[in-house]
């Protein structure tokens, strides 16, 4: 072969490769995952999305037979890294749709980028109602954004009911000391507790103790909590929650403790606390640990557990959200002819998946429409998952349930009654 022939053959091969690659890209729809690749939270969303994508691809593809390709961008649960991750997905990968397992602070970081790039984006973990308020105030710019977990205001509203029905009426607790981590999440939940739970449920806030998230020795804080004279501790912890939980148990703090404890949301909580996690209760979005599953959710769990043998061994609630949310996003894309802005948004708003258990609505994946007013709070939640915060919870999923870990390592739902699997209790070392 002469040199000229070699060059020609090389050029032909290159051109062929380029054509194949181009054809391959044209036959692909890109989904971007944004979240932490090393946290249970991030991995739950990622894996839920992976299972949904495998099923869609196995079913013949989407949008006329195209294959979905998933690309990931790690946020490391850091807002700055989150911004870079979003930019990477938008600019380098040019994704069509983004599914997020970001925590609140990270979502708030990349949200302006979403407004800039206008890429349809679904958040599965972040519940910050301030993001929904952005849609209320500036719908045109924020409309590619959807959140398929109940916003924290809805979480708090139902939690107030738990406060009244269980903490006050059943337990007789009327005063609280709030133990709050020093984060945006902690501040937001504290506001809801101090301004809503306490006055509405008739609970006096004796003291608020704010601690740094690097705190590893909680003994002085529990001593302060005891000295406050409050009936119980309300914990707000999303970072390293297993530390405060295990020290509560190891120190046998003689007060009940409930609240928001993110570590207790996962099945690994018991292992992570070295078995020192009994008695801890937390509000949780659904499906939670101890939550009875409908057949469709159980099928997802079975697939998940057959596919993954590393933690999290059971998907967190956002894994379910990612699985159903991604399928809904593609169903909307099929109707809209792709992820082009307005028509996809309109189609996404029509999505409505009802999951039944024993003939009654158990979970629902639908969205609040722009301008639609939620009866109890008398406000709108555009593009937030359609939650129901009034018994008998037959218009949507409950915004939250309260789960409690027992001293034998089991966990169950203690509120609301429709989903309850056990009674709320106090640890054995706490006097009634």
């Amino acid at each position, binding site marked *: 072969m002469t040199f000229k022939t070699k060059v020609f053959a090389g050029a032909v091969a290159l051109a062929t490769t380029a054509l194949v690659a181009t054809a391959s890209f044209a036959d692909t729809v890109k989904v971007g995952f944004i979240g932490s690749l*090393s*946290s*249970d939270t991030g991995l739950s969303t990622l894996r839920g999305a992976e299972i949904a994508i495998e099923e869609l691809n196995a079913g013949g593809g989407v949008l006329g037979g195209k294959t979905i390709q998933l690309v990931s961008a790690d946020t490391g649960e850091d807002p700055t890294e989150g911004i870079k991750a979003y930019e990477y997905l938008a600019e380098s990968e040019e994704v069509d749709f983004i599914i997020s397992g970001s925590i609140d602070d990270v979502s708030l970081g990349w949200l302006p980028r979403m407004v800039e790039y206008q890429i349809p984006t679904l958040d599965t973990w972040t519940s910050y109602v301030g993001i929904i308020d952005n849609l209320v105030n500036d719908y045109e710019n924020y409309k590619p954004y959807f959140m398929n977990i109940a916003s924290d205001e809805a979480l708090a509203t139902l939690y107030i009911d738990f406060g009244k029905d269980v903490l006050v009426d059943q337990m007789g607790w009327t005063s609280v000391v709030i133990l709050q981590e*020093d984060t945006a999440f902690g501040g937001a939940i504290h506001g809801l507790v101090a301004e809503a739970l306490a006055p509405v449920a008739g609970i006096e806030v004796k003291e608020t*103790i*704010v*601690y*740094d998230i*690097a*705190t*590893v*020795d909680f*003994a*002085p*804080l*529990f*001593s*302060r909590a*005891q*000295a406050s004279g409050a009936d119980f501790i309300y914990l707000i912890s999303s970072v*390293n929650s*297993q*530390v405060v939980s*295990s020290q509560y148990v*190891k*120190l*046998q*703090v*003689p007060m009940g403790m409930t609240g928001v404890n993110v570590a207790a949301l996962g099945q*690994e909580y018991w*292992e*992570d*606390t*070295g*078995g*020192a996690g009994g008695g801890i209760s937390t509000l949780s979005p659904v499906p939670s640990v101890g939550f009875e599953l409908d057949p469709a959710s159980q099928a997802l769990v079975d697939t998940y557990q057959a596919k993954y043998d*590393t*933690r999290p061994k059971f998907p967190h609630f956002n894994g379910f959200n990612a699985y159903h949310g991604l399928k809904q996003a593609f169903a909307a894309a099929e109707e809209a002819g792709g992820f082009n802005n307005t028509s996809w948004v309109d189609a996404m708003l029509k999505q409505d998946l009802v999951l039944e258990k024993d003939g009654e609505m158990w979970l629902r994946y639908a969205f609040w429409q722009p301008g639609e007013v939620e009866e109890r709070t008398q406000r709108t939640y555009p593009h937030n998952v359609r939650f129901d915060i009034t018994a008998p919870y037959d218009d949507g999923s409950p915004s939250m349930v309260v789960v409690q870990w027992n001293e034998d390592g089991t966990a169950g739902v203690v509120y609301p009654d429709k989903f309850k699997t056990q009674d709320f209790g106090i640890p054995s070392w706490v006097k009634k």
Partner: protein
Amino acid sequence: MLQILIQGMLLSGLYALIAVGFTLIFSVGRVLNLAYGASLMVGGYTFFYTAQVLSMPKPVGVLLAILVGALFGFLKYRLLVKPLKGDHVAIEISTLILAVVIQAGIILVFGDASKILHSIVDGVWQFGTVSVTANNIAAAMGSWVLIIGLYLFIRKTHIGRAMQAVSMDQKGAAISGVEPDKVNAATWVISGALGAAAGVFFASYTQLSPSMWVAPLIIAVAIVIVGGIGSIIGTLIVAHIIGFMEIITTTLVAAELRGVFTMVLIIAVLVIRPRGLFGREEL
């Protein structure tokens, strides 16, 4: 007040053990071992694996952790410190990088999530209105046993006196027949063992996580800067100052400011008394 006294004593004992292994290296070898926090991590995870995963008896877990820590210290010296032949900057950078590599290895093997160690000793002790876990009391007492043991070792044994000699004047010690290389190796082994023991105690007090090497390293650096780099007595005293300051801040001022006053103290000492409050560089 009782609460501050008890919790301050317990925390300070632990801090003293954490810092003393770090200052030992500087006293003898004149280098900052920035992988010292990794020794704590190695100790903590060894205990976790042996006592919690393999369900071996806890004393065996502690012993194995100390042995692995000693081996880790020896390997650091032979593979990193000795080949760099006294280039302090290179040693400090490479030990820091080593800590990051160890962290990545821990994540690979044990995952990213934090873990809580089973208590070394179970139970809760009540002092008036103050609850203290038996584990924390055991950790503080264990720390003091090791510190006193180290003191006696340095004062009473041949190798300990050789370490003193090298810390005062390496060349002079060599002329007197002391082999600085062996003394340095022994120092790194002892420091590794102390760090691993501190890691078990610290993790049982707090938590086990792949980033757990950072906080103890900061504590150790803070204590030895304020105490005087290389001064063991200064280290012990300042460990108590910082331990009590943290408890007082948390209890009486604001919990989120726990570490702030420590940092302010470091800056103040660096400005007013750069050699530290007890500035000595020999054992």
